[in-house]
């Protein structure tokens, strides 16, 4: 008999970066790299599992910015340009490494991967969201919704309307994309502020996830710790993240991704090779960047050794076995103590798999197969299925919490980024004012301006900008984005109020910040 469940969640998110005004824009590479290294490998993995009829249950969030970018034609075409360049570089690499068979083997491996990525991309008519939707329809994958632009909700406590708009727009993008209502919701950065569950309730959401202490420090004390969901007073269920399984992946000492046989993320031929040779494949201004072709393994010393895919694969299988073993013991123990089937909740950033942890998708693949065939202690499950089996749960108020640095709001509220809040709060207030002034606008131009104002406000609210400011490296792009969206918002606000909308300019920013094609500004209430 199975004694419990593991709920794996992959949180897929990238901030909205799209610059039609430039022919080449470096930060768009974030998307292209994630497509090649994470999203396509995940799609292929799930397709293989389905093909081989291997039962699995996964949960994934795809945030609205990610959905909008994956569905955007300009970015789709630019991705093809990007992958074609990489394929060309691979061919040159295969030639160049002719006398170094260990390297040539890797160049061939990358060529295979890039060709497969391109084929897969084209197979889904350049629309990877449709691929995820198709897999969701099989019942093995549950896609959950998230905030409009990954806004960090606890810091919208004083502008609740913004928090509500983040959720409402997020849910409406989900419905538009997948043709049904989302059951679950991913709170950006697991940021939960007591009471905000009412917003989720209003939007028909059944459950969300928090960081461990969101539940453990909740009130009253949670009887089952984090191994059963609780209901908030609104009736929305809340599942807490398990640290033990998180630690196995994230710990800098024991964590799997640091294994010496795994591929080293920070050694890339974009930096390693002769400038004249690599120049056509890096930034057009001659700035060296990552290409995605990396030949070394972590090694454990500065004298990096050549990557050996077979050894790395063995390690991924071992790590998957280790992870499973630990969950078996954990779940067995919990079952004895709790007298009911526990759920162990393990959420990760999707982009961890394949991008940073090159072998991550392989690990996941091994893990899913092993769970299916090598043990009988626990099964994979989604949160909504668990709620069907255990509809009766304790009611508590979870604590303020996030999965960010130090567990609360500090990552997004510190010396490096606190200057953004006066502007964000003011713009939120002004947006509310506009909606009050024009509760039902029919005038085409003004309506467009109101919609665009909401787009600009939401874009400024992405938690990504505050996060980048906090990390303190290469902050110029994040600063620029916050300023740009706030300034565009302010101009729109002034033009709308003074009835002097500059249509040409409006069209220009509509074409640049074209996220949420069908947004309705009245969601801001």
């Amino acid at each position, binding site marked *: 008999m199975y004694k419990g469940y593991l709920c794996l969640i992959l949180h897929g998110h990238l901030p909205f970066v799209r610059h039609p005004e430039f022919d080449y824009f470096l930060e768009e590479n974030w998307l292209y790299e994630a497509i090649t290294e994470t999203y396509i490998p995940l799609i292929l993995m799930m397709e293989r599992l389905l093909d081989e009829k291997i039962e699995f249950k996964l949960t994934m969030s795809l945030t609205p910015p990610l959905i909008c970018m994956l569905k955007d034609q300009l970015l789709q075409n630019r991705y093809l340009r990007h992958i074609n360049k990489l394929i060309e570089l691979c061919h040159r690499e295969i030639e160049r490494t002719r006398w170094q068979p260990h390297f040539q083997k890797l160049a061939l491996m990358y060529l295979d991967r890039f060709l497969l990525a391109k084929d897969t991309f084209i197979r889904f008519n350049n629309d990877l969201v449709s691929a995820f939707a198709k897999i969701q329809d099989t019942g093995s994958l549950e896609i959950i919704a998230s905030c409009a632009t990954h806004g960090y909700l606890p810091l919208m406590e004083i502008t609740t309307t913004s928090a509500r708009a983040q959720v409402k727009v997020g849910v409406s993008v989900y419905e538009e994309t997948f043709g049904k209502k989302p059951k679950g919701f991913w709170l950006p950065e697991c940021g939960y502020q007591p009471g905000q569950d009412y917003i989720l309730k209003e939007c028909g959401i059944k459950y969300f996830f928090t960081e461990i202490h969101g539940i453990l420090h909740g009130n009253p004390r949670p009887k089952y710790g984090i191994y059963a969901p609780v209901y908030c007073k609104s009736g929305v269920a809340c599942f807490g993240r398990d640290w033990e399984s998180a630690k196995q992946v994230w710990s800098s000492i024991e964590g799997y991704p640091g294994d010496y046989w795994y591929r080293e993320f920070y050694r890339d031929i974009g930096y390693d090779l002769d400038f004249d040779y690599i120049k056509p494949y890096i930034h057009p201004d001659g700035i060296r960047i990552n290409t995605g072709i990396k030949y070394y393994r972590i090694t454990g010393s500065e004298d990096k050794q050549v990557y050996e895919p077979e050894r790395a694969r063995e390690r991924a299988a071992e790590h998957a076995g280790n992870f499973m073993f630990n969950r078996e013991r954990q779940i067995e123990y919990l079952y004895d103590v709790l007298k009911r089937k526990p759920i162990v909740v393990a959420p990760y950033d999707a982009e961890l798999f394949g991008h940073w942890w090159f072998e991550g998708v392989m690990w996941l693949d091994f893990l899913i197969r092993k769970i299916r065939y090598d043990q009988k202690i626990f099964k994979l499950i989604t949160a909504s299925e668990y709620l069907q089996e255990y509809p009766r749960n304790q009611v508590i108020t979870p604590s303020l919490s996030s999965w960010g640095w130090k567990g609360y*709001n500090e990552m997004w509220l510190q010396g490096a980024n606190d200057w953004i809040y006066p502007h964000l709060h003011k713009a939120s207030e002004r947006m509310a004012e506009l909606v009050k002034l024009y509760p039902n606008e029919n005038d085409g131009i003004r309506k467009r301006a109101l919609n665009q104002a909401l787009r600009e406000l939401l874009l400024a609210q992405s938690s990504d900008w505050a996060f980048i400011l906090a990390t303190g490296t290469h902050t110029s792009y994040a600063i620029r984005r916050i300023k740009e969206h706030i300034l565009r918002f302010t101009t729109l606000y002034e033009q709308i109020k003074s009835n002097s909308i500059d249509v040409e300019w409006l069209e220009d920013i509509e074409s640049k910040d074209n996220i949420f094609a069908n947004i309705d500004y009245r969601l801001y209430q």
Partner: protein
Amino acid sequence: MKRLVLKLKEKIKNLKLKKLIKKRKLKSKKLLFKEEQFPQQIKMEETKYYTPSVPTYYPKVEELPLGYGEDRLVLQTRDPWWIHAYWEITPKTYEKLKTELKEDFLKAKKVLRVYDVTNIIFDGTNANSFFDIEINDYANNWYIDTKGAGRSWCVDLGLRLPNRFITILRSNVVSTPLDGPSWITDEEWMVPEEIFARLYGMGLGLGLSSPVGKEWHKEIKERLFQPLASGAVASWVSPVKKIEKERKFWLVVNTELIVYGATEPDATVYVQGRQVPLRPDGTFSLRFALPDGVQVIPVKGISKDKLEERTITPVVSKETR
């Protein structure tokens, strides 16, 4: 009657809470939740936004306004112990105060008065307690150490004179979360202390060996709030355990070999048996990473009508000393 009982219960809870807060204050160590615990997670997230250096091609963006010409004081929660206040005072308000207070204006100290308004509806006079923080004239925001978790706070920005306090701005009310598990259990979902202690420790990744007994709170926390991986932040640049280098100087040398040549544009050229694409003018060039040892590189050209053939064979030997 029922209400009264409830109120009483609340009061008792409050008392307990206060006691516990006092107890906690005695513990000198601040409880920092998972500080430096998962630097890898942050690091990984960071790699999503990877950019190599400051790109230079952005057109300049205008600056944001310094203020919005409004009096306001906003409070936000940072964590169980700290709250953040930011404010703007208009010159008009200043002038008004100056006229009203006359010479007192210069004597007055500008302070943030932090009210503990836990479980009350604050009317300006009924705070549980308060403390003042003197601030300078240039500050427009402040991080406030409230020294107690799980409370509600309200802040006045004001002027303090020996005999009175003048409120300039009053903030919104914020609540801070508890920094440990709640002391409140509900009857229906009661759980023995020991079991909860185990679950608590397990949830936080301490395994099955969580301590039990009276001291569990303390013990777990002491273990919990120690950084999981000491020195973890030093490995900021790499997922590997960083090996400290004594000095930073370094040198890397690699060699590559360029083989190039020319023939009739319509000829066929093979290098080490593999055909090479020719440029329209009949030239070609190849680039190889050159390892130590001897490389024999036969280059064979064949005319279009296949009647003529030439082979030239460079032999390259490389040695690294």
